[in-house]
């Protein structure tokens, strides 16, 4: 068989998602962000909601997400995407709103905004790309950086005494009555990618059904700042991040005890 017989349009199983624009992505080769973008774009297309979806991009490597998915976008200040999304969702209840945020953006500078938006149960989706590091600014420690992990600001490894502990923010989010679906996914294999897409689709559906906030963490790699090849980075993630951030659903439907939230009678 000739190479041209294999690389041939009729053999295509996957193609570029229709809503991914032709703008060249600025992500490093091997970065998880590009894969997650593709999944979000496919879900928006599958659900037929291109005309009513509004995305909110973060400050972080995904700041330019608005150049890559062909929908209306707003670019938020660092960490403020959940507040921006609240403003959109509250005044535009007919729209589908999502934020796309990194771990520094969501779990550090924007910790207050994400907790309160989720606690209010804003009808929106949060895509949380946790690569355990500040990718955009050159690989400094993030709140999610593992103990012992080397970064530009923890050159000898993160030390609990000096730097505190890695923050399992998704576990906190799952406690909040405003969230309906909280899950942790990854995109290092075709199987994981397919599962992650299903989770993102479910999250968007829940927001469209006005079930409150849906939250999808994607445990990710930053091969550039981890200073690894993409393949090695995936291995490192599975070996070191999965034990601390285990993939799987944390909350599916309303599991909070409604009795603890009975309002006072006036």
């Amino acid at each position, binding site marked *: 068989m000739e190479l041209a017989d294999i690389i041939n349009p009729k053999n295509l199983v996957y193609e570029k998602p229709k809503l991914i624009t032709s703008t060249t992505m600025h992500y490093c080769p091997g970065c998880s962000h590009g894969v997650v973008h593709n999944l979000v774009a496919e879900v928006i297309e599958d659900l037929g909601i*291109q*005309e*009513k*979806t*509004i995305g*909110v991009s973060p400050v972080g490597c995904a*700041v330019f997400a*608005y*150049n890559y998915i*062909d*929908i*209306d*976008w*707003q*670019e*938020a*200040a660092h960490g*403020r995407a959940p*507040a*921006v*999304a*609240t*403003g*959109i*969702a*509250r*005044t*535009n209840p*007919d*729209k589908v709103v999502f934020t796309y945020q990194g771990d520094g953006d969501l779990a550090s500078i924007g910790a*207050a*905004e994400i907790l*309160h938006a989720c606690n209010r149960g804003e009808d929106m989706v949060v895509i949380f790309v946790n690569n355990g590091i500040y990718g955009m600014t050159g690989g400094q420690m993030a709140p999610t950086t593992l103990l012992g992990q080397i970064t530009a600001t923890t050159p000898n490894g993160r030390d609990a005494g000096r730097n505190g502990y890695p923050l399992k923010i998704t576990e906190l989010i799952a406690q909040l009555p405003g969230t309906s679906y909280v899950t942790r996914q990854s995109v290092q294999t075709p199987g994981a990618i397919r599962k992650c897409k299903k989770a993102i689709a479910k999250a968007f559906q829940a927001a469209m059904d006005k079930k409150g906030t849906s939250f999808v963490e994607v445990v990710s790699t930053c091969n550039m700042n981890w200073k690894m090849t993409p393949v090695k980075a995936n291995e490192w993630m599975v070996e070191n991040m999965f034990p601390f951030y285990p993939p799987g659903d944390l909350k599916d439907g309303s599991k909070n005890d409604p009795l603890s939230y009975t309002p006072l009678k006036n």
Partner: protein
Amino acid sequence: MGELRLMKGNEVIAEAAIRCGCDGYFGYPITPQSEVMETLMDREPWNETGMVVLQAESEIASIHMVYGAAASGKKVLTSSSSPGISLMAEGISYLAGSELPCLIVNVQRGGPGLGTIQPSQADYFQSTKGGGHGDYRLIVLAPSSVQEMNDFVELGFKLAFKYRNPAMILSDGAIGQMMEKVVLADFIPRLTAEEIDQKYGSWATNGRKPNRKPNIITSLEMDSARMEANNIRFQEKYAKMEAEEVLFEEIQCEDAEYILVAFGSSSRICQKSVDIAREKGIKLGLLRPITLFPFPKKPIAALAKRVKGFLVVEMNAGQMIEDVQLAVRCDVPVVHFGRMGGIIPSPSEVVEALEQKLIGG
């Protein structure tokens, strides 16, 4: 004529917002302006006009909620007092950088720090010179009565949408808390989704339409040449405001030999000072800037050609005086009289200052 009522300045902001067809309010409690949100929550406009009212977790969140709603073409406002406005500085800079219209009400209190809950005008620099990072300006309106608290809500929105720029009502605790009679505006309906699309569809993120490019609201531009072009465009916008939107009031300036310059609460005091001075035979007038940005440079420069001096009266250590000095260009003396810490000067104190610092000096 509209409905006549006796109301607090802060309550009027809420009522005027509902009546002018506002789509939403986002805020966080702080004295002396909490009545704005309290009145809104009590009025429940979501039942009446569909206006959204939300108590946010902080002023940071409030202003970014305003950003999100404004960027989808909605008419939204927030209100706060000095320490809260400091927290909003980030969001205000982003709103200006993304060219978004909105209304911000600052019912000032004394500072720095937690300061005092009493009235002050110490946020003049913060409001008129930027406040947040980057080269930007707000349209700043300074009401001196409860009636103007009402009128400047619609005016602020009108200017904000005309220029796609945030507008601010710079009030203070005295006007926010004071009760006066006010003629309320008539109800204007909120814009429908179709009307928003017609008016603001060229930029608002109201959902990607098949017949247009995606609308993207951002203040980010990595290409220096394009960023400079953006900055130049902003500056042209501010220059146009300076040419077309200046508002001020002159009281007994025709024959005046000396001029008081004061805005907001101070200008109310100064009206009385003018009467006291005239009884003493001093020909005193008052120039009250209504827009603090754009600042009424020309009328002040014109007066400088024929009067003997200016006394700038502010409830701060001397902020607006810098703009008056720039307008006067050393033609005649410009001196300052201010009280701080939440103290409102008395009319006779102002006249004494005039006699000591300007006439006798």
